Every structure is written in C-alpha cells, then in structure tokens.
C-alpha cells in the first residue's frame, strides 16, 4: 500500500525502527494483554498462594467477570460497526430496577418479568440506533442523552430500592449452580459470548457488521443496509445491558437506582484492552473476554492485598487510559505495516 503514494512530505517523520524491533513491538501489542494477564495471575499466585490460588477464588473471579463480560460484549458490537454506546450502564441500572418492580409491584411471574426486561433493553438499543442512523445524532450525544433520561425515569418509577416482594427463585438464578457446579452467571456468560462470537464471525450479519465498521461507504455500495446493521448492533448492546442489569438485581436481591452505572467504564476498559489483543486495534469478542478477565483479576488481587477501595478507581481509570492507548498504538502499527 505504500507503493502507490510517496508520502515524503508528511509533517511527522515515521519512527525509524529496525525490523526486529518492529516485529517485537507488534508482537508485544498483540500478545501484551495476554502476557499481562498471565503475569498478574503469576504474581498473585506467588504472593498470595493460599487465598488467590483456590477454586473458590477462581469461581469468585469468574462470577464477577461474567456480568461485565456480558455487557462489554454488547458494547463490542457497537464498536465493531464504528459507533459507541454510553447508555449501557444506565440501561442496566434502569432495567435492573424495572425487572424487580414488575415482580414486586405488578405481580408478574419471573419469566415474564425477565422477558419484558430484555425486550425493554433491546428496545432502548433500537431507539439509540434509530437516533444515530435515521436522525443522525452523534452516538456520544444520543446515547448519553438517553442514558441520562433513563436515570430520571428510574427515579420517577421508584426513588427507593425495591427489596421486598422479590421471589426467592429470582435471586436463586444468580446464586444457583446448575451446571458443573459453576455459578449460573458464568454459564450464562459462556452462552452469550459463544452466541455473540458465532454471529460476529460465522454469519452474514456478522460479516456485514465488520464491513460497516471497516468502511461504511464501501459497505453501502456493496449492497449492505448500513442503518439496519447499526441498529442491530445497538439492539444487541441494549439486550446485553438489560441481561447484566437483571443478573445484578438477582445477585443483590433488590432493584437499586444507579446500581449498574459503574459497568460503563469497566466495559469500555475491557473492550479497548481487548481490541489490542491478538489483532491490531479491531474490536472482537475474544479480546473483550481477555480484557474483562484482566479487570476481574486486578480487582480481585487488589482486594486480597487489602488495598483501600479508592485504589479501584485509580486502577480502573489507569487501565482504561492504558487500554485505549495500546489500542491506538496497535492500530497505528497496523496502518504503517
């Protein structure tokens, strides 16, 4: 690709690295996240063998990771099509509140409440998608606007946590261990991630999503309905956010305002860490899972070593900046390769 242009008058001289250094850099950017994850595991295993290195703790890490992994995978879809969704944390909080309300106040059966919750999340996603594609509001603005509105609507619905009148069976969903003795959220995560991975990599619509994200104009001219593909991605993000919100309410045994807001940042950090994993700056489900695990192991280690809780935001924010930086570097190297 460098063959047909002669970019000699570029303002910034390109980094002049010898080729083995380049290879090493590309390798580091590809496997850096995985190496980082393994090093963290190794470090905690050596320094806190009794606590960190146990089946119970590993399951604990996976349980924590599962909710983040589900919401982050939905977010991955919007990033694959070149968009953004800042509403996911608010959607999860809002739906988590509504799902408990449906059971406690409206007397809906559990399955119907959950179905409504997931439909609601998907619907909000579709609304986001319509605002972005048809009305053409920038995704940052529209999803932030919708998310903020949801906070207010949630407050109107119930200013107080909904804790009474929630059936025991609902909380059992996240506490139970139906398959292989693994916590249910972990199983749900595996199913969701497998489904999203398959759709993204093995189906028409997944290929079209990648095409839209690679070059929207080219995708349009190839006969792809770009708007529909984007709306589908937003709907998936909404669905996943709703699922995370529902599982969180089940885990907490209550519907609480703003309970899931913090997942937004976790999800972004995980997705961007993931985009620098194995590929050069592309968003993908496997990468997102690696990103989520890095966060979960990190948080787990911090709490094992008794780090004060205010260390968590420092770690989280630091990881986010680091992740986006690595992703950007990876993309730049991919472009200059």
């Amino acid at each position, binding site marked *: *690709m*460098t*063959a*047909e*242009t*002669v*970019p*000699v*008058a*570029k*303002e910034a*001289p*390109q980094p*002049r690295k010898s*080729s083995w250094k380049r290879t090493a850099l590309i390798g580091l950017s590809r496997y850096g996240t995985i190496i980082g994850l393994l090093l963290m595991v190794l470090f905690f295993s050596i320094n806190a063998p009794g606590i960190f290195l146990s089946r119970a703790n590993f399951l604990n890490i996976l349980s924590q990771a599962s909710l983040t992994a589900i919401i982050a995978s939905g977010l991955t879809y919007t990033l694959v099509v070149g968009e953004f969704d800042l509403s996911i944390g608010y959607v999860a909080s809002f739906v988590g509140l509504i799902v408990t309300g449906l059971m406690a106040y409206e007397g809906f059966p559990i399955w119907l409440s959950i179905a409504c919750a997931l439909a609601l999340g998907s619907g909000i996603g579709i609304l986001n998608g319509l605002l972005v594609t048809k009305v053409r509001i920038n995704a940052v603005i529209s999803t932030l606007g919708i998310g903020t509105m949801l906070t207010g609507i949630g407050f109107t619905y119930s200013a107080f946590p909904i804790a009474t009148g929630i059936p025991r069976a609902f909380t059992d969903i996240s506490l139970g261990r139906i398959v292989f003795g693994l916590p249910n959220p972990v199983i749900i995560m595996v199913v969701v991630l497998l489904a999203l991975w*398959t759709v993204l990599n*093995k*189906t*028409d*619509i997944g*290929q*079209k999503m*990648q*095409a839209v994200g*690679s*070059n929207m*104009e*080219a*995708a*349009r*001219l*190839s*006969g*792809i*309905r770009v708007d529909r593909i984007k709306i589908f991605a937003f709907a998936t993000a909404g669905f996943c956010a709703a699922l995370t919100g529902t599982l969180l309410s089940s885990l907490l045994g209550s519907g609480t305002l703003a309970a899931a807001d913090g997942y937004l940042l976790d999800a972004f950090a995980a997705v961007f860490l993931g985009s620098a994993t194995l590929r*050069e700056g*592309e968003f993908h489900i496997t990468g997102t899972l690696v990103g989520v695990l890095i966060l979960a192991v990190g948080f787990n280690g911090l709490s094992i070593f008794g780090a004060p809780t205010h260390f968590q935001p420092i770690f989280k924010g630091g990881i986010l900046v680091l992740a986006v930086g690595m992703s950007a570097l990876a993309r730049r190297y*991919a472009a200059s390769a």
Partner: protein
Amino acid sequence: MSATASAADAWMRIRGLTKSFAGELALDRADLDIERGRVHGLVGANGAGKSTLIRCLAGVTSPDQGSVMIAANELQMGSPQASERAGLAFIHQELNLIPHFSALQNMLLGAPKATRFGMIDWKRSGVAARAAAERVGIRFPLDTKISELSVAQRWLVMIGKALTRDASMIAMDEPTASLSEPESEQLFAIIRDLAAQGVAILYVSHRLEEVLQLCDRITVLRDGRIVNEAERGALDKKGLVRAIIGHAIRTPDERDRLAADRSRQPVFSARSIAWKQAVKDVSLDLYKGEVLALGGLVGAGRTEFAHLVAGLARPEVGHFELDGKRLHVANPSEAVKAGIALVPEERRSQGVMLQQSVAFNINISTLKLLRSVPGLPFLSDAKSRRQAESLVAHLGIKTPGVAAKIAGLSGGNQQKALIARWLNAGTRLLILDEPSRGVDVGAREEIHDAIRALARSGVGILVISSDVEELTLLADRVLVMREGRITGELTGADITEARIIELSYQDAHDDQGEAA
C-alpha cells in the same frame, strides 16, 4: 551535458541503495546520478521502488545499504533534517499546506530564519520568500489564504517554499494529478525555468507523455531495480511502456471494437434523467456485449449520473430501465438486488475495506451464496475460501493468499478485487468509475481485459473515465458529457483522443486561473 557524462562529476551520486521490507527487496542496489539544472524523470509501476528511493533521499526511510554523495559530502541517511540541510525538497501530491495560513506564512513555515532571540525575522524572511515567489512567477498577493488558491497556485506555493530554503533539488510526486491541461503546461514552464536556474528536478509521474515531453533524462524502475536509463529522445512511449512492464502493450485495435446489435432490447436504458444542476436530460441505451464509456471533464456530471443509477441519489426527472423493465430503486441495497453495481471512483474511501482480508473484500456482496445450509445465516469457511480463490485466479489478482490483508496489495490488484466482488453477484449492469486511476500500465491492461470479457459475457458495462487514452483503448462506444449533458457520441474508428477532447472541451476553455 551528454549521456556519457562521467559519473564522478555528477552533483548527486546515489550508489548501491538497497532496502527491503519484510524480506522483500523494495530497492535493489540502485545507482543513480542526478545533475543540477536537469529534469530527471522517475517512472515505474506501482511497487517498482520509486517511493522507496524517494523516501530514502528524504530521510524518512533508512536504506539497508548504499550511500548518497552530494557534491563532496556524504548525506546522512535516515534523517529528514539532514536531507533538508543538504538542500533536498520534496513535494507530495497531497500538498502539505495549512489552509487558513497565508501563502507567505506557509512558505516560511519551519524555515530556519530565526533571529538569535528565537523570534522569526519576518522582514528578512519575507525578502527571501518574495524573491522565491518572483522566481516561480507567483502573481497573486502572498497574503492570500491557501484556501482561496487553486490547486495549481498551491503547487507554486510549495515550490516557492522549497526555494525559500535554497533547495538545490526538488522532488515532485504526480504534480499534475489534479491539474487541468493548461495548468499543467504552466507548471512545466516553471519546472523548465527552475532547471535553467540550476535546480535539479526529480519528477515522478504515471503520465508518460508528460515525462517524455518534460524530462531531460528518464530512469525506469521495475521490481526494485533500475532497468533503463535514457536521455531525452532516446525512448518513445512504446519503448517506455515496454521498459516499465517488461513487455509490449497492445495498441488500440479497431477490430477489437464491438458494434453492438442495436435492434435488440438494451440491457440498460436511461430516460431523460435530470438531477439538481449536475445532470440534465440524459438518455442513453446500453446494448448487450458492449463497453459503453462516458467521457468528458471532471465535473461534467458523469459521477453524479453513476450515483443516480447506483441508487445513491434519486433522479428528480426521468427513470431507468433494466432488461426492459422499469427500475424502482431507492438505495444502493435495492440497486444491488436489482443487479446494478458500482465500482467507485475513490478506491480507498469507497471501495476497499483496508483492514480486512482479500477474501472478505471479494465475498462481501455474495454472502448469501456462501451459507453452509441455504436458509440459515451461517457461512461456510470452505465455500468462502473457494469462491475467493477461484476469483483471484480468474482475474489474476496478485496476493500472497486470500487470507492476506487487502491493504498489502497494489492499487491495481485492489481494483481487481473490487471487480471480483461483483462477478458472482448476479450483476446485470456494472458501472466502473475511473477503473484504472492510480493503477500502473500493466495492471491497467489486465483490468481492461477483465472488463471487456465481462461485457462480452452479457453484463452491461458502463465505464466512466477522465483518462482519454483509456477510453480509446477500452470503449466500444463513447458518449461525451459536458456540463451535465451528453454532447456527442463516438463509435468505431471515431474513438480517438482528439475527437474525445474536442467534444469535452467545446466552449469550455475560459476558466483558466491567473497562475501563469
């Protein structure tokens, strides 16, 4: 200076310059002498090594081996600052100017004319810049903002900028790519003038006539090697083309032109199409087997017409017919479903998905055919690979494999992949907008063969090209557009460069800038 000028006297002596990327030689022991006061042409197919050579001189790429002597000094490699200090200036096609700065500010940008207090000595700098402006014949006021200047005038500013820094060699990359013919002529006059003043010019272009007309000496690169060096007049165009591609190219042969049977139903028709001010009452019929081309100047409404056919916009007046049936197309997706595809003008921004593989780029419009089980949305990797491989072989796309990223392919091979995208898609009408822009001569010939074969197989082909030579080589019939209207039709032996240009320019030579 004669062709046998002794190498030891040359002002710049490039010796044994070698550079490989990822194990492949981009430049292989290149020896080249450059003299002040002469225009040196550098030609070669995409990927032949021109860019690498220039990037080495500019200091943005470090060669693996080799040296460059300028007069008595060795040039420090891999340092843009050293190259600039040595008096080498480089002007890239995408001019590196700041649009809201004045011409003067741009000319002085980064110029090392500061006082000892670190402040810019505007007065002294201004004198140097004005002297430079005088030399290149800039007639507009130097405080004009770049955004208000024509492309040709911007080139003058870039040359002026180089002269302000006392450049003794200026390398220019495809300077005429976005210039009109008269503007190009003006630029050539300035280049000759600069050479007469003792500046060395390194001129890189795909436009061979231009190179033959302008350059005192032409160097041909192929596969990283210098394969030919000729003084002015020693090579004609045919010889030059042969040197570039390594074999002779076919000349337009009238027997190749197909006179389509016009008594039959057209594959595609346009009826009185009008849209905004760009397309005015355009009607045409495209018959089975023929390559129909739209000629004319940039801005004649041809691309807009193509966009209307492809569903990117809807005509305000008129309608289209495909195989005799009236079309109702509201967007590109419906156009593709109806069998109309567009290979767009801007390959990079509208055509290829650069970070994806060759197979991905080829298969994206035929995903339905690649399902494991019809009716279910799951794709078969084996079918995908097989389709991509067979199309790669069919069109002779040069790629390390179908899983390779398309970004690594040359422009010509990327273009072939974009054509491949439509071969299995049930396409009835394929519109190709500037199919060989930025593509080297060898690849262009292959692309033309593929297009012609497609037409003969019954697919309607509508080609849009501003490259007059391409029209004469490729088209069976040419419709010339000017200011939104079809102004003439050429068939058979009438399809000549002269006739096309005549029809394109009628009443249209009153818009030249004052850059002369």
